[in-house]
């Protein structure tokens, strides 16, 4: 447990995370609606690499696909996301 997790202290915003806008009328970070593993998700990520980091899978053993096409790990940084994109994020599993 880190110091920030202790209940007797006020919890600061998580480092690196974008805080939700307080005034909803004012547009801030462009939030994209994408489909990740079959579920509609709003994201602040602009690239596939940022999306992976946002989901805390930066260090995970995963592979990715965008709109049905494989995206190698090395190309996630340059892979821009657009509204409505369908992303698959997969990991090793038991199989027959």
């Amino acid at each position, binding site marked *: 447990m880190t110091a920030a997790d202790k209940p007797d202290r006020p919890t600061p915003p998580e480092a690196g995370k974008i805080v939700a806008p307080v005034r909803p009328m004012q547009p801030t970070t462009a939030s994209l609606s994408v489909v990740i*593993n*079959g579920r509609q998700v709003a994201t602040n990520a602009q690239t596939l690499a940022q999306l992976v980091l946002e*989901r*805390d*899978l930066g260090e*995970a*053993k*995963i*592979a*990715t*696909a965008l709109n*049905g*096409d*494989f995206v*190698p*790990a090395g190309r996630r940084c340059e892979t821009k996301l657009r509204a409505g994109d369908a992303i*698959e*994020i*997969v*990991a*090793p*599993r*038991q*199989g*027959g």
Partner: protein
Amino acid sequence: MPLRLSRPDKVANKGAAFRTGTQHRLLLSFKDSIKHVRHNPMMSTQDTITTAAAPFKVYGHELSSRLLLGTAQYPSPKILSDAVLASNAGVITVSLRREGARAKSGQQFWDLIKSLNLPVLPNTAGCRTPREAITTAQMARELFETNWIKLEVIANDDTLQPDLFGLVEAAEELTKDGFNVFPYTTEDLGAAERLIGVGCDVLMPWGAPIGTGRGLNNPYGLQTMRAYFPGVPLIIDAGIGAPSHAAQVMELGYDAVLLNTAVSKAADPALMARAFAGAIDAGRLGYEAGLMEQRDMASPSTPVAGTPFFNLEGTGSKS
């Protein structure tokens, strides 16, 4: 790539299905192979299996045994490990599935797989179209760091039978992309020739639908396939339910068996894994030794000449 095998003359040879060039080579290497002694940590020293079954190669890689074992549906990771060790499997099959945010279950499984130190064959289980299968294969290649792929393109949810048209299409694309494709197919010879034509060096016909445990649904068709493709590694994939089924596969001259549920759903998976290892060795040795031909009528094994009380008049002894 030209079709390599369309040779009915091979089928017509005396001794029929099983006398093949492959077998001849195997017989020649028998003396070498008998030295192979496997040690399994699951067993005591006295239990060490001595096997004479010759090894075989797929895509230039010599497998350490003729069993390919699936990793799904075990009661626990420990039981999976125990079963793999007890099976002496030469390859383990794996898959990939969607990973939730912050979940690390894939990492844990990957660590377990690495600890088993065996070649890994990822599958494209559940894919319904060539495109899904191709993308899944590409993701699997990156995840598992292998260009081997057990290619499944499924046609029907009730039978899980392969879509042979989609299978050929995906196999061709993947082979061009540098994959070594292990196609999950049927005993259909036309599809088999197409698969070989697009670059598959191994074929994996089903014994019965996946997960049914019914054994060999069409032994005649599979025997024909073995005879038709004497030089192609053939692995029975799916449908095996009992060690006797695996022994039958090997007696037919098939090169290996791929199974999962029969072991993972056994009351004692590690013990069942050991049973399969024994059955596969026994069946293979039986094939290499050359099975006798079946007869329709009884034929005495004990010499007839000199039988006591035998009467040439054919009435037997009567007092």
